[in-house]
């Protein structure tokens, strides 16, 4: 093992209390950044979950639509204009809207209704744990997520309630379709969705466009844009990005998460810098001896940077374990924290940069060491 590493390791572990304080600082900082960035990623994924699960090549959306939950409406007749374009195989209407769910107890709670043409399978509920998609075609049938059963005041399959004074019956139950707004999603047939949300029968929220095999997406899109002037035509990726941008940045949610992450980095840097500085100060006599026996400044910088890197690796490892536990704990919540391999790599890099940057104050201190002090101590 290189002696410079041994020296750094021993310096670090010599004062265990200070080392623990350093590691706590790094762990606190990285866990905070992990949670903030994990929430950012999780939020970014959750807000596009409907777009991700819709099988569409293109979306026809009302002009100016900001996100999936935007309640603007299109004329249902646009569907026929879309279908008249060569290359369009299907234009499936999707209706969304908020409504009040009246529980058997008489209490009400807001729900988010998603209606789709169940025969075409535009935006159907997924991950069914009870019931079948086909059952949603029967009168009054709806699908709910099992995590919302309590919230909706029902016990499960076959339970009844009212939406807009009209009876509904649970015919399918999903697992894990959760809304970041905490408002339960209710899936049903598109015509009943209009009725339950008060949307006129001649209106729809979106059309999901599926192309014929071999059709050129750009060309079809161009024709759709010129034929349906009051709407926008977006690819799934574009709609996803638009929704994500709206929720993360227009609402300030993303900025708040980034601010929290930045706070974590600042706190971590200050704590590590402070502990490295005081550790260096404590070992200043040893560093002066090193200088006296002829070491270069670079050698001493290496000792300090190794201390910083060791702190980074140990702190990151603990933070990663805590982060993994938090991911597991939040997996079933409305806003799960998402950690991707890219985020892990980024966080490790951030930890290293933070710790090495924290070493600068200590390095500046060492630069001023007078080797002659080895004779006067």
């Amino acid at each position, binding site marked *: 093992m*290189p*002696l410079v590493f041994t*020296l750094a390791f021993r310096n670090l572990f010599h004062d265990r209390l200070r080392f623990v304080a350093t590691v706590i600082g790094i762990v606190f900082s990285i866990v905070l950044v992990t949670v903030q960035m994990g929430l950012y990623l999780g939020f970014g994924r959750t807000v596009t979950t409907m777009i991700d699960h819709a099988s569409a090549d293109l979306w026809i959306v009302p002009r100016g639509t900001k996100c999936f939950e935007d309640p603007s409406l299109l004329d249902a007749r646009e569907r026929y204009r879309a279908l008249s374009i060569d290359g369009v195989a299907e234009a499936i209407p999707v209706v969304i809207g908020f409504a009040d769910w009246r529980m058997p107890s008489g209490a009400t709670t807001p729900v988010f209704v998603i209606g789709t043409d169940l025969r075409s399978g535009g935006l159907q509920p997924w991950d069914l744990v009870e019931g079948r998609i086909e059952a949603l075609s029967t009168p009054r049938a709806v699908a709910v997520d099992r995590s919302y059963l309590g919230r909706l005041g029902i016990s499960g399959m076959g339970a009844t309630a009212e939406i807009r004074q009209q009876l509904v019956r649970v015919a399918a139950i999903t697992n894990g379709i959760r809304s970041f707004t905490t408002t339960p999603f209710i899936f049903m047939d598109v015509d009943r969705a209009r009725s339950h949300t008060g949307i006129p029968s001649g209106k729809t929220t979106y059309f999901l466009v599926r192309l014929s095999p071999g059709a050129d997406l750009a060309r079809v899109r161009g024709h759709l844009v010129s034929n349906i002037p009051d709407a926008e035509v977006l690819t799934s990726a574009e709609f996803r990005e638009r929704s994500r941008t709206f929720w993360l940045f227009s609402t300030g949610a993303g900025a708040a998460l980034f601010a929290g992450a930045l706070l974590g980095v600042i706190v971590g840097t200050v704590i590590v810098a402070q502990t490295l500085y005081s550790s260096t100060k404590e070992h200043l006599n*040893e560093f002066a001896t090193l200088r*006296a*026996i*002829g070491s270069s*400044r670079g050698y001493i910088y290496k000792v300090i940077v190794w201390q910083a890197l060791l702190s980074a690796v140990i702190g990151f490892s603990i933070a990663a374990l805590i982060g993994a536990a938090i991911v597991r704990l939040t997996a079933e919540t409305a806003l799960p924290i998402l950690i991707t391999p890219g985020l892990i790599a980024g966080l490790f890099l951030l930890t290293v940069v933070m710790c090495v940057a924290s070493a600068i104050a200590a390095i500046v201190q060492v630069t001023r060491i007078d*080797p*002659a002090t080895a004779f006067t101590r």
Partner: protein
Amino acid sequence: MNEPVIEAVNVAKVLGSGAAKVAALRGVSLAVNGGELTLLMGPSGSGKTTLLSILGCMLTPTEGTVRVCGHPPDGAGPEDMALLRREHVGFVFQSFHLFPTLTAVDNVRLALDVRGEPSRSARVTSREALAKVGLSHKISAFPRELSGGEQQRVAIARAIVGNPSIILADEPTAALDGENGQAIMKILAGISKEQGRGVLIVTHDPRLLPFADRIVHIEDGRLVGEEHGAARPQ
């Protein structure tokens, strides 16, 4: 006749500034030859440590020149001075200045590690250096597990492991009892005689006189006398 391994010519050093300015050295000329053990003696504040620091390339003189193995460090930057130290000078300090978190062999190995010597050969050489000072049985001991005399022997091993031309020692026996002090001086005298290195020792301790080839006296920043020591070959 051995050549001087270290040499100061008309060296003056002013410390501090303004009203606090002090002339620590005034026109000091001194040469230390290989194979010679020289004692530098003088009262506190006489300039002994300042002279040692200048000869050891830790301080630059205000006036005069210094040569270390023929190299003049005049005008050299801190890194050039460090290079001269690690290539030509070994240091022994009054308080040993061992690294408490490193074993004896690692403390010695540091002097080679700062030169970039490979770990494996450095470990072998460091063990040999410890054997030379009679500590081959303590290579894995930490400083806290060693007596004062043993710690100073580790410090001497660290000073000689890089084969420097000169050893500069500042009060190497001051922190030791008489018996350990004598043992340390025997080792330093052996380094001088058997290995042909120059050894310059700053001391107050008259018990070291029998080991000296030469004794140089300094007062108020000036060399005021020089005499042959008992160890000098007649």
